[in-house]
Structure formats: C-alpha cells, structure tokens
C-alpha cells in the first residue's frame, strides 16, 4: 500500500513539475504556491512515513533472522548429542562383540568331565556346595584339579629319570677305568710283536707311524702321500715313500690358538726390531717378509723310484705354505759309479734333470697366479731366483698334490685326489723314463768322447758293415754359442731351439773333409728327436742351406726317427743318428765328382758304396738310403 502510494505520488509530482513550466503562470500563482506548500508538507510527512515503514520492515526481518538462528543452534546441539550417542552405541556393540568372541585358553585344556571331577577330586578343591551352583567357580575348581594332577605326575617322572641317569653315569665310569687299564697291556703286546712283524715283513708299525705323522702333513702333501702309496702298492713295487722333517714344528703350526702365535710373533717382531735398529731397518724387514712368504712346511715327502738297473731317483717334495704350491728337488743315485764324461755334465744335473717332463713345463715360474700379487708386496721379481733353494714348482708336481690352478688346461674340472690319481701313473713312468734315458745317454757320451759311436746289436741292420767316416769330436756347447752358429739360423728362426734344451757339436771326419753337426737335444729325449744342422768343410764351405745334398742328409737324420729309434724305449736314437750321418757322409764324398782345372783328378775317396744311380731328380740328390740286406744305396 505504501509502495502504491509512492508510485502514485511520483507521477503526480512529475506531472506537476512538467505541468508547471507549460502551465498558467499568470493566474493563480498564489494558489499554486499554497498548493505547493501543502504538497511539500504532505510529501515530508509521507517521507517520514516511508522511513518508518522501512525501519519497521528491517526490524521485523532482523527479528525473524535471530529466531531462525537460535532454533538452528538448538537443532545443532541436539544433532551432536545424537551423533555422540550413536557412536557410543556402536562402540559398545563392538566391545560386546569382542567379549563374546573371546576364547579363553582354559577352554583348550581338556578337563576331566564334571561327574568324574566330582567323584575324584578332594573336597577342598571341588567344593561342591559352591561349584554346583556357580559355573564360574566350577570351572575354576576343575582347573585347579587339573594343575594338581599334573604336578604330581611330573614330580614322579623327574625323580625316576634322575635316578636312572646316576646309575648310567656310574656304569660309564666303570667301563672307562676298564679301558684305560687295557692300554698299557696292548702296547706291551705291540712291542713284543715287533720282531714278529719284521720276520714276516709286514711293517704295520711303520705304516702306522707314518699314518700318525701324515696327519700333520699339509693337504697337498697328504694327497701326494696317499696317492703315491696307493700307486706303489697297486702297480709299482719299486716306489717307496717316506716322510721327513720336524713333526713337532708341524704340530705347532697346526695348533689353532692364534693368540699364542700372535704373542710369539709380536715378541719376535719386537726383538727383531730392537736388533735391527742397529742395522738398516727397511731392507731387513723386507728380507724377513720375503723369507716368511717363501717359508716351507717343516714336513716334506721323499719318493724313491728304483729302476731296473738299480739306479734310484730320489724326489723331495716341499710345500710352500704361504704360496700354496709344491716344489720338488731331485737327487740321483746311479747303480754304479758313473765315470766322468765331460759333455755329460748337464745330463744328470739335479737342477735341470726334470725340465720339460711334460712339454713346456719349465718349472721356472710359480704356477699359482695369485702369487704374483704376494710377490709384488714383498718385492720378489721372479721366483726363478729362489729355485735352487726351494726346488722347482713344476706343474706336474702341483697335479700330483691335487692342486690345480686356473692357468692349467681347462679340460678337466677334477681336483684333489682324483687329479693326483689321474696323473700318478703317467708321471711316474715319465720320471723313470727320464732317468733311464739320461743314464743311457751318459754311458753313450763316454763312448762318444772316445770317438766311438756305440751301435747296439739290434740296430746293426741300419748301416753297412764298413763305414769310413768317423766321429772326431763330441763336445757340449751353450745356448749362446749355438745361436751364433751360421748354419743353425733356420732352426732359431723356426723357434726350435730353447734355453732349456741341451746343445752339442759333433765333428765327423774323413780324409780332408770335416762335417760339423750342431745338435739340439730336447730334454724330453727320446720322445723328442734331436735336431741336426750340418756344415761341410771340404774344398770350400757348404751348409745345409746352400747345398741340397747336405739338406737331404739333415733330413735323413731329423725326419726318419721311426727308422732310427731302435727298440723301445728308443735310447739308441742319438747314436743311430750319428752313425747314419757318418754313412751319409761316406756316400756324399764318394759320389762327388772330383774335377779341378777341367780335368778329372785323382779321387780322394774311391767309390766303395754300391749305388744304383749317383744323381736323381732336378736337384741331383745322392742316394742316402741304405737297403738291407742287399747292401746298396738308393734314393727315397
């Protein structure tokens, strides 16, 4: 209503205002001003009424809002209370659920049934007056009874087992005393049986003693001992094994308490330091470290190989503890005193006797690659410097001790005893073969130095009855001297001469002709063929390089070992080669045309050998092949 009034008023005012400028100004100006005044008053009143109404409206609005707000708050509070209660209810429900689910341990214990319980249990436990009414008390009582029962039976068992244990202990004591009384009796019997053992040659005592000492051997030596003994008993009656060295030291080494060892070594070190302060400290310490690294185990094995002719090869095996390798030293006891042969000096040299038993096993470097790092720490350049002291670390020695190192051939994954057993037989055979070959060579060298080539009866068929060239000189030369000879350069270039080989020079003579033969003898002779290089001094100098016939002669002795090696084991190879050279020299000289100054002069060497043809093929080779029994020479 007010608003309508307002609306009505406004247009009126505007009309009025609009009307005034157009209106009749002149006539009723006074009426108009009174009307205006009236209207003004009315409008003011109306304005006030408007304001009042507005105010009222605002107040009413405010009141309404406040009321709403209050009620809302109340509702909120109540709502919160509801929520709290609901939570509590839920919580309680959960708790109730948990309680209901709870299984007490006591339910798992099998209890005696109620009737039995009442019949068996004594009154103070069962207390029937209470328990019959109250199930809680009943359960408690039953549990009590269960406990009582268990206590009784357990106590009984404990007593009985204690008693039996004491009885058994007493029995053990008695038996121990009995056994200890036996021991001295047994020993006296053993002593008494010693003469009997010797008489029957069954050295149990010896074997036992060895077995005792063997317990203190380091593992590789132990493997070697066991395998060598086994091999000796099984196939080789002429092999015997002994243990030598200081058993007490070995025992001391194997004692575990390291503190005592450390104390000793500390005190030792202190002492050493005290004394060494007077001398150069650094070098001395390094020396000691080296000595320590290269220390040998106090026990060593000695294997004796006896050969058919009575000579014995002694092998001494040592174990270097820190380097974990085995080394070997040798000694030869020939069956009869070997008379001296100058050129044979190196043949039985213990340092080189076992070189290259297996191909390229020189034994100059340690086969254990880990040792390289150890050596670097103490400043050892090569192991070769210590070989004369410590022995040779050949690879076959490591194999016999069951030690295998990564650098060895990877074909076998066997180690330990199997490795040793695999190689024992072949190594022993090679060792014997080596000794016998060297002894045979020694004997042959004595002959050779007396300018006689010993040809055995079985090999006589290889040569004609009459051979006129003879061996004039037989000497040994060094590797350096060999390498400088002009006629051997092709051998050196082909890599067939090594420092480990033995080198000899043989000079064959007939008339004015001199044939020089430089010989490379591989340590594995006679499994390896000696290699000859020739140079002929006769009316000028010719060698196997310049003269095809001399080359053919080299071929005759170097390539045909199957013909020349003679009966097994082939010890005749070298001497047969020399004899063949003499025979070929004969043929060469007798078939050479002797022309000088255009005229065929008198022959220095008359033709005695029967040859079918003196030249054949584009290089006109001479007939060097001897045919038995016809006795003539032909070409190959």
């Amino acid at each position: 209503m007010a608003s309508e009034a307002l609306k009505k008023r406004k247009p009126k005012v505007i009309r009025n205002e609009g009307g005034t400028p157009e209106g009749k100004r002149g006539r009723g100006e006074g009426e108009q001003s009174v009307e205006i005044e009236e209207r003004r008053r009315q409008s003011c009143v109306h304005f006030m009424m408007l304001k009042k109404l507005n105010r009222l409206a605002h107040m009413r609005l405010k009141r309404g809002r406040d009321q709403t707000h209050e009620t809302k708050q109340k509702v909120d509070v109540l709502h919160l209370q509801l929520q709290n209660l609901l939570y509590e209810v839920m919580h309680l429900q959960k708790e109730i659920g948990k309680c209901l689910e709870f299984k007490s341990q006591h339910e798992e214990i099998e209890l005696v049934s109620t009737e039995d319980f009442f019949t068996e249990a004594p009154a103070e436990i069962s207390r029937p007056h209470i328990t019959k009414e109250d199930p809680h008390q009943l359960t408690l009582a039953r549990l009590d009874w269960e406990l009582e029962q268990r206590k009784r039976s357990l106590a009984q068992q404990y007593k009985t087992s204690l008693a039996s244990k004491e009885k058994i202990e007493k029995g053990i004591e008695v038996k121990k005393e009995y056994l200890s009384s036996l021991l001295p009796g047994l020993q006296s019997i053993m002593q008494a049986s010693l003469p009997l053992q010797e008489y029957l040659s069954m050295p149990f005592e010896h074997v036992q003693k060895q077995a005792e000492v063997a317990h203190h051997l380091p593992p590789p030596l132990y493997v070697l001992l066991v395998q060598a003994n086994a091999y000796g008993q099984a196939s080789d009656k002429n092999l015997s094994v002994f243990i030598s060295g200081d058993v007490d030291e070995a025992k001391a080494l194997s004692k575990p308490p390291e503190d005592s060892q450390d104390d000793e070594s500390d005190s030792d070190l202190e002492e050493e330091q005290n004394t060494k302060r007077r001398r150069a400290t650094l070098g001395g310490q390094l020396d000691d470290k080296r000595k320590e690294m290269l220390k040998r185990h106090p026990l060593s094995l000695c294997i004796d190989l006896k050969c058919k002719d009575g000579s014995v090869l002694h092998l001494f095996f040592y174990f270097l503890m820190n380097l974990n390798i085995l080394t070997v030293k040798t000694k030869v006891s020939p069956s009869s005193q070997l008379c001296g042969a100058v050129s044979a000096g190196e043949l039985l040299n213990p340092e080189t006797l076992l070189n290259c038993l297996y191909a390229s096993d020189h034994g100059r470097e340690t086969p254990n690659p880990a040792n390289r790092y150890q050596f670097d720490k103490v400043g050892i350049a090569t192991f070769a410097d210590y070989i004369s002291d410590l022995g040779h670390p050949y690879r076959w020695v490591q194999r016999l001790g069951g030690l295998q190192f990564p650098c060895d051939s990877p074909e076998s994954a066997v180690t330990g005893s199997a490795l040793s057993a695999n190689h024992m037989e072949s190594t022993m055979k090679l060792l014997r073969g080596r000794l016998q070959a060297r002894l045979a060579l020694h004997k042959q060298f004595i002959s050779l130095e007396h300018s006689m080539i010993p040809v055995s009866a079985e090999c006589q068929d290889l040569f004609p009855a009459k051979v006129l060239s003879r061996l004039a000189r037989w000497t040994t030369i060094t590797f350096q001297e060999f390498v400088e000879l002009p006629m051997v350069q092709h051998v050196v270039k082909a890599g067939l001469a090594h420092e480990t080989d033995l080198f000899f020079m043989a000079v064959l003579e007939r008339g004015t002709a001199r044939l020089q033969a430089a010989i490379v003898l591989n340590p594995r002779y006679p499994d390896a063929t000696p290699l000859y290089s020739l140079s002929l001094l006769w009316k000028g100098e010719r060698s196997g390089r310049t003269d095809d016939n001399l080359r053919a002669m080299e071929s005759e002795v170097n390539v045909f070992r199957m013909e020349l090696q003679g009966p097994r084991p082939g010890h005749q190879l070298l001497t047969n080669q020399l004899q063949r050279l003499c025979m070929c020299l004969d043929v060469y000289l007798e078939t050479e045309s002797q022309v000088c100054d255009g005229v065929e002069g008198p022959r220095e060497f008359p033709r005695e050998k029967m040859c079918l043809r003196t030249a054949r093929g584009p290089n006109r080779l001479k007939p060097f092949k001897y045919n038995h029994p016809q006795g003539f020479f032909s070409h190959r």
Partner: protein
Amino acid sequence: GSRVRLCVVKMGPVEVQFSLLHMSVYSQSFSPCGRFLAAGNNYGEISVFSLSAALSPDASEASQKPILTFTAHDGPVFSLLSTDSHLLSAGNGEISAWSWVELIKRVGVEHLKIDVSLRTSLEIPEINTMVLSLKDNSLFVGGGDNNIHMMDLETGVFKSTLQGHSDYIHCLAVREREGELLSGAEDGAVRIWDSRTGRSVHCVEIYKYEECSRPQFGKWIGCLATDSDWMLCGGGPSLSLWHLRSLSPTSVFPILGCQRQAAFYQDLILSVGEGGSLNHCLLSGEVKAQIPCTPPCLNTLALNGTEQRVLTLGGSSDQIDVFTNLSYRAFSLSF
C-alpha cells in the same frame, strides 16, 4: 686345408715342424682359370692354394695357407702340368690326373693313374718333366730311365719312346712351329727331336763349348726354354742363349749358381736356381737384377697366363714366394 698323410704314425707338432723344415717344393702349376696354384713337394704331397684369396685386399694369414693338401704319390712330385681341365702330376714312374673342378672344390680324388712302365728290377725311376704338344695333342714325359716317352692325350696310350740320351732327362721344351722337341739331360747333351718321326735331329753337347762350360759344377743340363728361334739352357754350364738355326751360343749369362729353371718373358729372361735369387737378364747377356727370395735354393718358376700377372717361385723351403711385380717379392704362401 686338410692334411692327408700317407704315413700311419701320427705326427706330433714338433715332428710336423721338423718336416716343414726339410720340405722342398719341386713343381708348380696354375689352374686353367689362373686363380689357383698347385705345388708339389718332396714328400709326394700336392697343395692347392687360392691365389685370388691371397691376392685380395682382405687377405689374412689363413689365405696364404693351402685350401687342400693331399698325398699324391709315394715319391717326390717333380713335375706338375695343367691341361684345360686336369692337373697332371708325376710320381715314381706314374702319372696321375686330377680334375681341377674337383680340386677347387677341395676334393683330392684321383681321376686317372697312368703307369709309365719305367720300372727296373731294383727301383722305379722318377719322372722329372712333362710337356704338352698341343699341335699333335700329345704329352712328352722324361725321367730317370734316360728316355722320353710320348703319350697320346686322347687315348692315353704311349705311342713312342725317344731314345738317345745316356743319362737321365732333366728338362723338355717344345718348338710348336717346327713340331720339334728339345731335351736336356744329365749327360750334358741337348737333343732336338722330330716329334713325328721320333728321331734325334741334332745333338749339342753344351759343355764342349768353352764359353759356357763350368767343369767344377759338372756338365748336366738342368733347364731348357725355347722361343722357336732361340733356346735357353743352363745347369752345370752357365746359363746361355743359343740361336737354334745356327746352333751356336750368342750370349752367356754371368750367374754364379747352377740354374734349374728359366723362361722367356716379354723381352726379359727370368731364371732361378742355386743362390736363391730370381735373375732378370737381357737378351744381350746382361744380368739386369737379382732379387733375393725366401728359399736358399730355387727349383721352380711359374708364370700366370691371365690378366693378373703373377710369378711364383718354389725351392728348398716350405714357402712359395709370390711376385705381383717382377722386381720384388710381395708375400709368401706356405705349405
């Protein structure tokens, strides 16, 4: 290549090295296509090498080894000859034919073996030389029985024997145009034969000529080569160039060692022998160059006939020198 040896004993590695040390190459022959070389040695073995592989830019050490090695004969293989399909090899009194196609495929199976019936009671003489005469399609074989045997290549039958020398035949050469055969022997004579009649037309004893003779070496004739009008011969006597119509020596070459093989090449003369060097000589008698080679004595010289001109030399060594440029050794093949 595979190594097939006749001997029953298995050779250790050192024994193999020994045998290589004492090996001599006596004969060579190129395949018809020129890409393969066959070489024969003193153990009776023949090795086939692939020259195209060895000469290719990515050749390795393995390509200088044979693609095939097999034992062809009991005795040394002194002569090898190639026809347009087969390789002929000479052993002790026998000739074997091997198909080149099979050899290139690394199969060393004999196609044919011809017994030259040279056998005497005590030994079988060797065959030192074989030459082909394309005009009458025949093969001439000379060897240890002092005679030259003529075989018809189509039938494989020996038609005739040329007798006249008093010692074994070293070398043969064919004069195609005139239909003649030249032979040099240990007795110091060079004989010229008419291949149709089989008779010796001329006989020249080289050692009787003062300019050539070298009595300290002997009178044997080791090598012969002919260029229809000219003839090269050498051996004990010095290497000399002869004019065939007048049968007189025109130049004598001052080479020290005894020569074992010589050949005409363009306007040069190449020869090899003792002394271990390849000699380049001019027709005037001058020795232009002497190139050192691996073997200390050379036995055989072979020249390839195809576009890629290659010269190979073999001798007292297991190495065969290969020359792509005649003035220096390029590399060596090894057995």
